[in-house]
């Protein structure tokens, strides 16, 4: 065998050779110090790149908050909504309603969030209809947040009394907070490192999904912890005492 080229050496490093090819290259390396040296050089370069990328990653800002608009369309109109939402004018039409004008971001982005949040609802329907129909239900908005150092905190600030809050443990790596049934001004989402603040707004229901595998998770209302994760269960604080609430906890703001 002639000297091994970079292609063979990289493929060996990355496990991309067939068994026969790998055997041939390894056999050659045993008897060729020059090629063995080249392999070492490539390994060092690879390690340098990996370490450098970790330095870069450490300086990377977190992705911007993904404000998601959920458009709850009927099943038969699903595909029609999708096709029309591809155009900005269609997005404005479909989202016409009290909450739409208050939402941040471009129309395309709002549509993307809507589609992402409830993909099954939007894409499980029949063939596209000829026209777009406005969804009947009110819009919702949501945000995701990744835990940092094994912790996630959701802070509800100045939310209307009477808002129902449901907290669940879910099998996902990131938390999801969704304001459902916005009936007035939309709440503001502020995302920090391992935490999300939901501020104000007039919503009927707030849904909070917390990662089951996170070490620590809390939901607080105006600075007071109402729900915290304790192992595999949630503990709900009510009237000055905590109760085991299982994988789901519900409370009403102001109670």
């Amino acid at each position, binding site marked *: 065998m002639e000297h091994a080229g970079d292609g063979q050496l*990289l*493929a060996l490093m990355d496990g991309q050779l067939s068994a026969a090819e790998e055997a041939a290259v390894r056999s050659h390396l045993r008897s060729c110090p020059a090629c063995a040296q080249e392999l070492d*050089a490539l390994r060092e370069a690879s390690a*340098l790149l990996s370490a*450098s990328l970790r*330095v870069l990653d450490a300086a990377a800002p977190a992705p911007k908050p993904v404000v998601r608009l959920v458009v709850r369309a009927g099943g038969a109109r699903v595909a029609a909504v999708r096709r029309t939402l591809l155009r900005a004018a269609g997005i404005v039409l479909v989202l016409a309603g009290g909450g739409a004008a208050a939402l941040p971001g471009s129309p395309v982005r709002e549509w993307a969030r809507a589609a992402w949040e*409830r*993909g099954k609802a939007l894409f499980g329907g029949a063939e596209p209809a000829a026209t777009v129909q406005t969804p009947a239900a009110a819009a919702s908005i949501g945000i995701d947040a990744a835990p940092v150092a094994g912790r996630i905190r959701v802070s509800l600030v100045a939310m209307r009394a009477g808002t129902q809050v449901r907290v669940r443990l879910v099998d996902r790596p990131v938390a999801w907070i969704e304001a459902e049934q916005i009936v007035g001004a939309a709440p503001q989402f502020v995302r920090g490192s391992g935490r999300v603040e939901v501020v104000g707004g007039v919503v009927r229901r707030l849904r909070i999904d917390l990662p089951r595998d996170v070490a620590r998770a809390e939901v607080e209302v105006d600075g007071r912890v109402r729900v915290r994760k304790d192992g595999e269960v949630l503990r709900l604080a009510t009237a000055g005492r905590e109760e085991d609430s299982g994988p789901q906890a519900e409370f009403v703001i102001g109670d």
Partner: protein
Amino acid sequence: MDYDALFHRLHPALYRYLYRLTGDADTADDIAQETFVRLLRQSMPESEVRPWLFTVATNLVRDGVRKAGRRQRLLAAERFMPASVPRPDEMADRAEQVELVRRALAQIPLRDRQLLLMREEGFTYEEMARAAGVAPGSVGTLLGRALRRFAQVYQAQDGRAQEGTDGTRG
């Protein structure tokens, strides 16, 4: 396809890849989101989604590089060439380390950078070849050349910085 699950699972890696590829968080954000928007119009086996996402995202980066209006926002070699050797007191700064990495990556052509970063994400050579539009048999050679280039450029820039630190060649 369960779009919601796919997004949760794949968006962090795609954003990381794009940030490494472009050096710009805003660009990484925009392109990651645009890529997922485009996925909504697709139908494919879930096993094909991840390579598809990275391919489309990289094409969007490439398109952005071609457009004059985006050129100054994307990683470009001339942008990161220092006008002078960094001040000695800067070298201990982590920000300078980050800049060193960015400069070194900027010296790698976009296609080779794509291959290096997709390799870091664990793609197979077949997937990388399809994404980059090269023959599968050439991926290893291209990677090897790119790795050597990165190491050479990084060490050269690090050496220049060390020279600035103590006045001697490091």
